[in-house]
């Protein structure tokens, strides 16, 4: 780089947002929500979908617009295994085929609508989106979450929020160590990313900020946490999140998932289960799960507050203590590329461990200054 180049004003670049939605499994939330025998409207992938459970117990996802005259199937009625359109009662099966038109002798040719492959796993409903229309490859899976079906763990506590920005913003969090300090008031001390195949992992250890820490109601002080979080595909992250307390650990599994509504908005979900233990007996585990869920919700709100006013940026200017944003986006690009065009660079293993020496020094100083200022102002530390 020449002196003139390094002196030039840095210009923020942002291409048009692709009008294409990621290939992969997307979680729509707890299956229970869709299992009441009524049709449900889900706005996803730039379209309107109908989700319904037929009498046969199958959960189905179809394009909501009836191929007859465009009626909205999500306002219709489940009749047997099919969804009946509210306009003229055409019956659509979970495979996308029109099975019956009660007032007609036969179903016409071409009576087939779009049906999304579904997966019901660990009490969650997933849909497979593929702009090329191919079924999910056998090796592209969502891992089982053991705790969900075990009595040793609490049940899902699930939240959903609509966010009005493109979903790449939430993906960027995977590599953004510094924002955990500035936005989420945590204190990362270790940070590593690994991208491989359709997975992207963030391993983070953190300590409790002395200027934020408060003992909880039971008088336990959290010392820190260890988080191993992996995206399986473009939209479903499983975070094995352990909170360390004096003398014991609190284990949780956190889901951070989303599905795009359109290119300018997405539905952001969190799910949490907590392991019961000596310290978390009986209803205390549920209380803790609720507390953690509230904590995660606040984390989302902190992100959303930033996203609300920031700009999209394709060329972030990074320092050495930032994570691998470009390599993460290269990984993420595989989901927006035809399967045959995915390059080895997008899926090849990439590891990146940040040197946290300098950040830890700076953040230690900052937290100490906060404490000193509060002490000087006569507030409790």
């Amino acid at each position, binding site marked *: 780089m020449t002196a003139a180049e390094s002196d030039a004003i840095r210009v923020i670049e942002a291409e048009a947002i692709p009008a294409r939605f990621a290939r992969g499994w997307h979680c729509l939330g707890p299956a229970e929500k869709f299992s009441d025998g009524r049709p449900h409207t889900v706005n996803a992938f730039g379209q309107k979908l109908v989700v319904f459970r037929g009498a046969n117990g199958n959960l189905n996802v179809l394009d909501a617009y009836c191929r007859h005259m465009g009626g909205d199937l999500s306002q219709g009625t489940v009749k047997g295994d099919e969804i009946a359109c509210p306009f003229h009662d055409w019956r659509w099966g979970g495979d996308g085929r029109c099975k019956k038109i009660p007032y007609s002798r036969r179903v016409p040719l071409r009576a087939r609508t779009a049906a999304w492959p579904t997966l019901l796993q660990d009490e969650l409903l997933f849909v497979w989106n593929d702009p090329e229309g191919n079924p999910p490859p056998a090796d592209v899976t969502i891992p089982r979450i053991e705790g969900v079906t075990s009595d040793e763990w609490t049940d899902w506590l699930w939240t959903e929020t609509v966010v009005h920005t493109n979903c790449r913003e939430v993906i960027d969090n995977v590599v953004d160590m510094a924002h955990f300090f500035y936005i989420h008031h945590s204190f990362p001390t270790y940070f590593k990313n690994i991208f491989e195949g359709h997975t992207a992992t963030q391993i983070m250890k953190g300590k409790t900020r002395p200027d934020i820490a408060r003992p909880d109601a039971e008088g336990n002080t959290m010392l820190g946490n260890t988080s191993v979080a992996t995206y399986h595909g473009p939209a479903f992250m499983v975070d094995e999140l352990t909170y360390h307390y004096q003398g014991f650990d609190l284990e949780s599994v956190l889901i951070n998932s989303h599905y795009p509504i359109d290119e300018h908005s997405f539905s952001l979900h969190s799910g949490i289960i907590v392991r019961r233990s000596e310290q978390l007996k009986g209803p205390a585990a549920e209380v803790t799960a609720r507390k953690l869920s509230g904590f995660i919700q606040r984390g989302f709100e902190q992100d959303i507050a930033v996203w609300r006013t920031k700009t999209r940026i394709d060329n972030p200017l990074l320092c*050495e203590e930032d994570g691998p944003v470009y390599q993460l986006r290269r990984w993420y690009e595989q989901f927006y590329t035809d399967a045959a065009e995915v390059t080895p660079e997008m899926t090849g293993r990439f590891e990146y461990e940040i040197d946290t020496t300098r950040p830890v020094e700076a953040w230690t100083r900052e937290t100490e200054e906060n404490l000193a200022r509060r002490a000087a102002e006569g507030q409790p530390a």
Partner: protein
Amino acid sequence: MTVRQDDRLTDGMPMRPVRCRRCDGLVLARKSSWEQTSIQWTEEAMAACPSLADDRHATCPALLSAIREAVLNGELKIVDA
């Protein structure tokens, strides 16, 4: 979206080839400090590495020492040095 280059690689230090002493796998590596390491694996290196199969979240210790050795040999420069 097009895939863009990380400016840190073009303005500062690019990734350089390093070969593992144990499995002979060839990767691209970069160190912005003694404590910081980036590793770009190839299919071949992944197939050759015996540690990867054990723990996909860990960095292969043999490869890591090969990278450190490359720094000590002067084959790999540290950005901050």
